[in-house]
């Protein structure tokens, strides 16, 4: 397994569009060739080496390549975009669109991640150890086709529109979420272990959403079904007692969405 280390040089002002930072691109390239890859910053193009010290050569394939970003890069976007194999470790905060459209391999963000992490992801594992913001595993603006496969794990909190338009794969959030978690979901699984503010599962037509904490304002288009205990979805376990709902009946189509809500924290429902 070859390791390529990218050490951020200076503070970045205008955000850098760095979709080239992914194992598929680095495989078979020397440190020098990697440094010469072109990234956009605003209206101009620069070599990657303008922003990073590059150490180590890529492996023989994406599978054999690990990229270590050694520092905080909150203003570097699209790291690991469309990667199909290999590993990316960001030892700090990641910028927007980390793991967008990724199809395989693994990304670990040891700090926080900006919005759009794992947008329209198709496969692989994206693990964010800190907090993240909006649109995780979501469809791009205007689209209703979100994440279709793979797994996103967030150890901290996330904000709005998590898993928007999700039709496959899993999102597991250990902390809390804000608004519109699972909006337009039509498949897949979203597990929120903490609290949600409102509009969970709005306009969902299929898929499963689990909220282990309290929902401040419950979505009105859902209908109570039954109480279930100790949920299990493959290797994902949700212990405790849950109220099961079906919806969102606000949609004119036939809906088959399922929402589980912790009985303990949602006494009023």
């Amino acid at each position: 397994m070859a390791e390529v280390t990218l050490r951020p040089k200076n503070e970045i002002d205008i955000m850098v569009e760095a979709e080239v930072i992914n194992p598929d691109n680095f495989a078979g390239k020397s440190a020098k060739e990697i440094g010469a890859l072109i990234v956009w910053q605003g209206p101009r193009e620069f070599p990657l080496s303008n922003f990073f010290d590059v150490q180590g050569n890529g492996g023989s394939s994406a599978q054999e390549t690990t990229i270590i970003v050694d520092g905080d890069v909150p203003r570097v976007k699209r790291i690991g975009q469309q990667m199909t194999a290999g590993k990316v470790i960001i030892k700090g905060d990641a910028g927007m669109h980390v793991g967008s459209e990724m199809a395989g391999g693994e990304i670990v963000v040891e700090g926080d991640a900006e919005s759009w992490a794992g947008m329209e992801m198709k496969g692989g594992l994206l693990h964010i150890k800190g907090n993240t913001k909006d649109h995780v595993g979501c469809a791009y603006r205007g689209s209703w086709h979100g994440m279709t496969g793979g797994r996103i794990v967030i150890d901290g909190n996330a904000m709005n529109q998590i898993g928007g338009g999700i039709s496959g794969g899993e999102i597991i959030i250990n902390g809390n979420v804000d608004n519109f978690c699972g909006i337009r979901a039509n498949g897949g699984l979203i597990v929120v272990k903490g609290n949600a503010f409102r509009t969970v599962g709005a306009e969902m037509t299929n898929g499963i959403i689990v909220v282990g904490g309290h929902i401040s304002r419950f979505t009105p288009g859902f209908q109570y079904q039954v109480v279930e205990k100790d949920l299990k979805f493959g290797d994902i376990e949700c212990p405790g007692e849950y109220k099961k709902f079906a919806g969102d009946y606000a949609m004119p189509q036939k809906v088959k969405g399922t929402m589980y809500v912790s009985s303990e924290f949602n006494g009023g429902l």
Partner: protein
Amino acid sequence: MAGTIAIKNGYVFDPLNEVKGERMDVFIRDGKVVRELSATEMDNAKVIDASGMTIMAGGVDSHSHVAGAKVNAGRMMRPEDHYKSYMKKTPITHSGSGYTVPTVYLGGYEYSKMGYTTVFEAAVPPMEARHTHEEMRSTPMLDMGGYLVLGNNWFLMRYMKEGDFEKAAAYVAWMMKTHKTYGIKCVNPAGVENWGWGENVHSLDQANIHFEVTPTEIIKNLTEINEYLGFAMPLHLHANNLGHPGCWETTKESLKIPSNVKAKPNVDVEWAETKMNAKRHESVYLTHCQFNAFGGTSWRDFESGVKGITDYVNSVDHVVMDSGCVPFGEATCMTGDGPSIHDLSVLTGNKWSNTDVECECGSGILPFTYLKTNAVHSVQWAMGLEVLLYVKDPWKSIMTTDSPNGGPFIKYPLVMAWLMSAKSRQDTMKECHKWAQDRSGIGGEEREMSLYDLAILTRANPARTIGMAYRKGTLGVGADGDVCIYNIDPTKLDVNDYETLIRNLQNSEYTIKDGEVVARQGEIVAIPEKRTYYADINVPDADEKHMLEDVKEWFKYYTLGFSNYPTPERYLANPTPMTVNPLR
């Protein structure tokens, strides 16, 4: 010398001159096709050796949604359509983005790369004419014009109710020159007005609300006005009941209405030399027939109803139509038919928008994805091809996708391959839902169109139909020097290898406009001048004066002032008026 070019040794297809793939040279001097170039002219001319290649006139699209308020709303509604589809700028081209609804620049470049040089915008709402012209002015590479939407116009419906034909004709003439547009478009007559009240019309004899006119009356009057005024093109009709199972019968009945209206185009133009009569003889031009040819009574027994329409079209001489093919994949439905878009949104759950254009018309937009796995979409794919394959005389049909309703125009090469290669159709059919086979006749259709047929469907007939064949759609002497050279050797063409065919149709070897090479193998190499065509027509002053009094009186219902209504010439790129002479 600019605009002077000699194209040697190619196989020429020029249907209006009955040239069927003969090896001959094409000469262009100062942007116009000429019989020959003198020795000195040859010295200065650009010479292209087109040995082993196919030569046609530049492509003409007579129905495409490329400019205007509705197209732009489609762009704004679909950031996802632009996010992953974009083009970097080059020293001579602008950047651009958008897959189904590209930016004006990208749209112009993409058409040109395919060998098209002329595109007409399918629907210009009068109030949005300025906006439409601004976008057409900014669309590079293409000569353009637009059709004025008049099928639900308050003034016209009022005059029809009152039976005042002269005022109605005066109004159409005044509107056409005021908004610098080219022909009359009629969308869901009487129905769009009803949609303002949450209703539609469900039969051709149903009178609409308030104005109490029926679709039949509107179609009859507009076709008669069209011929009375002598426009170059027939009435452009988007029939009622579009997109509903069983609508083919409504369409057929609609086409019967103007069967006794005689075509009388009367324009002052210099005609290029053609063997065939390059004037239209049709009184109605039906658009996107596929969407108007649904059979069955519900989505459960949905089937193709194309044959009912093509049988009728084959038996009469007053109808020409374009297909509205469905090449599968992403599309954006956009039409002046607001209620049909609302119905689609209920059906699909997709995002949608509707607009009411004050006293004139309306529109709707909705993103749509045609899937081979979907039963209805598969039949629609088959139906679009049926429209073109079942019409025996190719001079009665035109190839379109109603871009971007059935699919974006960049997919024309796929449609061409399906028409030319039975194997291509069969291979696609295998990937389709079984309804494509069971609910249409496409599986049993063995017809394979020739390059000559294709030249009729994609340049000669669209140009002839809309009255542009005096300069477009032909390589006759005097025509514009718009040429498309495909890297296709007709003597070695194997339509079973349709993938190569598609590739060669996607990017022309050369696209030449006004005698200048503008695109070469998929790259834009020059930005030519462009023109905008419109009908310049005058009616007797007395008629116009009385009519304008009515218009000014009802302008209180508009949110804009009367003086801001007309579209001045400065909104047009190289305004090119076509003098139209009304009957006296």
